[in-house]
């Protein structure tokens, strides 16, 4: 057991810290979602120029070949520096690694480099109105037409689709076989009239997610990833990467929010209130246990090549704790925290999505029960 960073990891962190200190991301523009996104795109360009945009990618694909621990350090430091996630986070974390595993040499040459520079943004076309947690039941159809595929269907919860050039699309190419088997994974060009992107206005008022209406969009054969009918397996590669690294960013954000609540409580003399103090202690406990458990998960993967239960537990604990934290902040600050447009009001509302996005808590519990504890399939 050794909970210190190695010399190499420490050197990585120090170099990154120094770079982030010299290259502050600054404050996000407040005017519109579009401007905020453009700011994150510029930020990614600067990261790419400094060689920091795709640290976890192998050197042969333009990354630093960072270990999982270094990748975790990257996201922690980014959050610690109050910098945003790079604009093309889905490309860097999901599409890139999936193409590295399943892509042809031509696909790797074509798609990977523009991901790093944020020249081409990626979105993820998995969920559908009728296929959320039950992804394999998706209905979007792709039909072969010469050396092209013609796609018709609807996708939802597509983050960043309005800014995207490419979409990781999973569609049904065979309706005759069991539902997991008839799927194919495509790399779909978003710049065609047959795709309509409609931003979904969230309960926070902003639009991170979109609906995609696809009416006869065309995808050339060479943009099939991992073979026709193999879409479920390829999609699992994407989903396996879904929480990699990001958890460490969120874990630090949680800590920062907790520090703010502690400071607010202190300012109001509420640390002497035993009920408030107890709740804050509980949040401190959870925040630290999340961090520790996330690191145990890293060791599991680094040492044994297999994720343990930690990933699901960390997502579950983080989402719940962030909700408790923002609720406590609203409780302590009173109406001030409920004023529209203020940071705490935003955090309170945004936190409701945490237990839904990237796997609902209920589904995570099913996964833990079935795959970790070996319980029979849920009813």
């Amino acid at each position: 057991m050794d909970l210190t960073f190695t010399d190499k990891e420490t050197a990585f962190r120090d170099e990154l810290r120094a770079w982030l200190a010299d290259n502050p991301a600054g404050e996000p523009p407040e005017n519109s979602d579009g401007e905020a996104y453009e700011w994150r795109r510029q930020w990614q360009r600067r990261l790419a120029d400094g060689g920091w945009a795709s640290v976890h990618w192998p050197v042969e694909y333009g990354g630093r070949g960072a270990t999982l621990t270094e990748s975790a350090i990257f996201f922690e430091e980014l959050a610690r520096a109050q910098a945003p996630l790079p604009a093309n986070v889905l490309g860097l974390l999901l599409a890139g690694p999936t193409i590295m595993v399943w892509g042809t040499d031509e696909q790797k040459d074509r798609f990977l480099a523009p991901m790093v520079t944020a020249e081409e943004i990626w979105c993820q076309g998995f969920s559908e109105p009728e296929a959320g947690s039950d992804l394999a039941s998706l209905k979007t159809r792709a039909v072969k037409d010469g050396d092209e595929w013609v796609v018709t269907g609807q996708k939802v919860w597509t983050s960043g689709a309005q800014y995207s050039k490419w979409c990781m699309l999973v569609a049904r190419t065979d309706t005759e076989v069991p539902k997991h088997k008839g799927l194919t994974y495509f790399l779909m060009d978003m710049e065609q009239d047959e795709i309509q992107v409609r931003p979904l206005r969230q309960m926070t008022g902003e639009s991170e997610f979109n609906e995609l209406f696809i009416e006869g969009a065309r995808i050339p054969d060479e943009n099939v990833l991992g073979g026709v009918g193999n879409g479920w397996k390829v999609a699992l590669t994407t989903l396996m990467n879904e929480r990699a690294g990001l958890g460490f960013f969120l874990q630090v954000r949680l800590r920062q929010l907790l520090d703010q609540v502690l400071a607010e409580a202190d300012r109001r003399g509420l640390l002497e209130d035993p009920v408030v103090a107890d709740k804050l202690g509980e949040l401190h406990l959870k925040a630290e246990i999340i961090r520790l458990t996330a690191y145990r998960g890293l060791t599991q993967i680094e040492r044994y090549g297999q994720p343990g239960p930690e990933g699901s537990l960390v997502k579950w604990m983080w989402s719940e704790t962030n909700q408790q934290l923002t609720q406590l902040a609203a409780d302590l600050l009173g109406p001030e925290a409920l004023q529209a447009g203020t940071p705490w009001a935003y955090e309170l509302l945004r936190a409701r999505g945490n237990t839904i996005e990237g796997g609902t808590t209920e589904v995570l519990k099913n996964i833990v029960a079935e795959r970790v504890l070996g319980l029979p399939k849920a009813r």
Partner: protein
Amino acid sequence: MHFDLNDEQKEIKRVAHDLLAARSPFAKVREAAEAARYDEALWNELVELGWPGIAVSAKHGGQDLGAVELSVLLEELGYACAASPFLSSATAAAVIEAAGSPDQQQRWLPGLASGEITAGLGTPELAADAEDAGVIVLLDDDDAQLLDRDEADVEPFVSIDATRRFATVSGSGEPLGAGAAERVRTAIAAELVGVCQRALDMTLEYVKDRKQFGVPVGSFQAVSHRCAQMLRDTESARSGVYYAAWAADADPDRLPEAAALAAAAAAEGGREVTASAIQAHGGIGFTWEADVHWLYKRAQLDASLIGGSRRHRAALTRIGASRAARAAAPAG
């Protein structure tokens, strides 16, 4: 960064697990509890293995290992819910080794490491194994002192956990050095992790086997989600204990926070997980024969011995608030 047991520690864990599964099944635990005595044969075997001195240096007759190895053994003793003074004795020895004066070490460690004498452990209101002990480690908040049994006033305290002997203790001894109280709590928390793991394992076995409405009850989400929560609580406590045990030997500056994390997570988790085990077992879980109650009772007493969870959450709030204040202070 390697946040897991190393191969040697895993081997210790495996050996302890197998030994206790063979020597201290619940039939033995029940027998000892009903007779209100400890399992002598088990204690002799633990002594032969040198485990009471696991975290004692070789020069004092111990195994020269540390807090992590002690935690590993305690987790397995907790898993077995063993009727033994091992927690008190091995932990007191580890504490005297780490935070005792040279005089205290010379006086007590050889006897504790060899199993010739045993130790008591706890607070004046609730101490484990104090009556037959040679020496007692007594906590008062974050201070700890060492009491010669002959100079202590010890009154038996019959608790709901019949697998362990308790007493109230009065008397004044010599102070122990920094980190003693935190090490004691880390050790108790380690035992609680084992108690949680056993409660979870027994529950999983039961809900996979027990059928109602024609299917295993573990296929109902109301049951399976409770089991998932049990895993979460168990692993949370384990994360805290590993961290605290590591910090105790490798980074003592972090021990106060780490031990508070371990204690709060384990006290709360132990009570929740063992209560869930009873509930998931249904009616049978409420019976004397079902054995889950031993775990519930052990968890209750361990949680009390560790000082409850509220005190540790309060400590965490203080630590968090001072850290937040530092974070908010202007740089430089």
